[in-house]
């Protein structure tokens, strides 16, 4: 880690900014595929989208190890998260409570992260997938809890085979990771309960 990194500020009004961000994240996972604005009013460090940084500032603390790609971990983003969240940055994906991945990068696979256990499926990694855009990509149809009939999303800049990985994650339900696709100051939730594929 470089020591000459200047760490930018976090929330200026932690109570209300984190509450607003949390409601957006809760809505994102309760209504999968809906675009939720996570405007924390912060300037994110290099390498993190505003929504990613706000989500981690809201949810992560000393109890939640975070996995970042090494280029982020060793840079400003890593220093920023260590300082503001007090989280340990881990190098093994399977040890992480939260992870940030680039949607276009091949490694690591979603299956490399912690899917929880039969008795404690809640102890799984929440992965924030930073993508090039939340629309304009390949259209996929979502069904499942939180979706009235079906919902279509088309996030862009995701690696080949990404949707097959998400479908495989759903097959392991109730185990599995939960995804938040982020770009700019918005997120789309894809909890493990969401089924990928054709509408019923």
């Amino acid at each position: 880690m470089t020591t000459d990194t200047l760490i930018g500020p976090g929330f200026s009004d932690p109570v209300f900014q984190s509450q607003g961000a949390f409601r957006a994240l809760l809505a994102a996972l309760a209504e999968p595929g809906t675009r939720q604005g996570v405007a924390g009013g912060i300037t994110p460090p290099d390498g993190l989208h505003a929504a990613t940084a706000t989500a981690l500032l809201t949810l992560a603390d000393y109890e939640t190890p975070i996995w970042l790609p090494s280029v982020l971990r060793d840079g400003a983003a890593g220093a920023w998260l260590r300082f503001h969240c007090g989280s340990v940055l881990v190098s093994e994906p399977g040890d992480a409570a939260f992870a940030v991945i680039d949607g276009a990068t091949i490694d690591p696979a979603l299956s490399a992260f912690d899917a929880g256990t039969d008795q404690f499926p809640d102890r799984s990694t929440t992965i924030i997938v930073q993508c090039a855009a939340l629309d304009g990509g390949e259209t996929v149809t979502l069904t499942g809890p939180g979706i009235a009939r079906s919902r279509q999303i088309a996030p862009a800049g995701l690696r080949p085979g990404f949707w097959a990985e998400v479908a495989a994650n759903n097959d392991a339900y109730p185990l599995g990771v939960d995804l938040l696709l982020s770009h700019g100051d918005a997120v789309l939730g894809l909890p493990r309960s969401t089924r990928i594929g054709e509408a019923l």
Partner: protein
Amino acid sequence: MIRRALLKAVAVPGYQVPFGSREMPLARGWGTGGIQVTAAIIGPADTLKVIDQGADDTTNAVSIRAFFAKVAEVATTTHTAEATIIQTRHRIPEAKLTEGQVLVYQVPIPEPLRFLEPRETETRKMHALEEYGLMHVKLYEDIARHGRIATTYAYPVKVEGRYVMDPSPTPKFDNPKMHMSEALQLFGAGREKRIYAVPPYTEVVSLDFEDQPFEIQHFEDPCALCGAEGVYLDEVILDDHGGHMFVCSDTDNCEDRRAHGHRGTLAGHALEAAE
């Protein structure tokens, strides 16, 4: 930490997420779970309604509403349609909940299998293995003994075809309202340190048998005050000679109907005149 538990609860509908329940300014068993969940989500833009057995004006409901009005400076209401967050103890409002509303339940015993198997280690395994035979045996024994399923409240449901869940001790009359509800439903059990959730548009099916289908309570007479039918009624004792009346459990629904001119047999005079 409560917020992280809520997100995982929403991702695995019906599964009970353990959380570190905090000390609250009231005794455990008085709604500490519901208060913690409400406190974790509530913000300046919210309007809060609190009900206790359907009523807005009972001690627990009044106290919790005043608590959040004071510490969170949020608007409060008694009207179901105006509320964004409704904290409830054991009822679901009669008015249909809509998208964007959040229903927060205060839950005493979150584990539906607890009275059948007291050991947490065992019930946790049973949930992991989806081993719910014991619950069906319990319902069967009801039929063998009483000729029908005698469970009338805390009637077990299966969520999204996976987890058997305790709907908190709501009357089984309210179970069908949980199925494909447009509102997000969050459950907090403070003493038992569990949080669980049902997202909007989620399958919530009451357990039953092919030849003994699930049924809700039916009332012979309408509400004595507002004449409503098809709502859940409470019995009120009027004197010590056996006199009694049945009135709406949902006070907001009842007041709203009376304000719109509906009259039951014991309504007497209009509300305005009473004031």
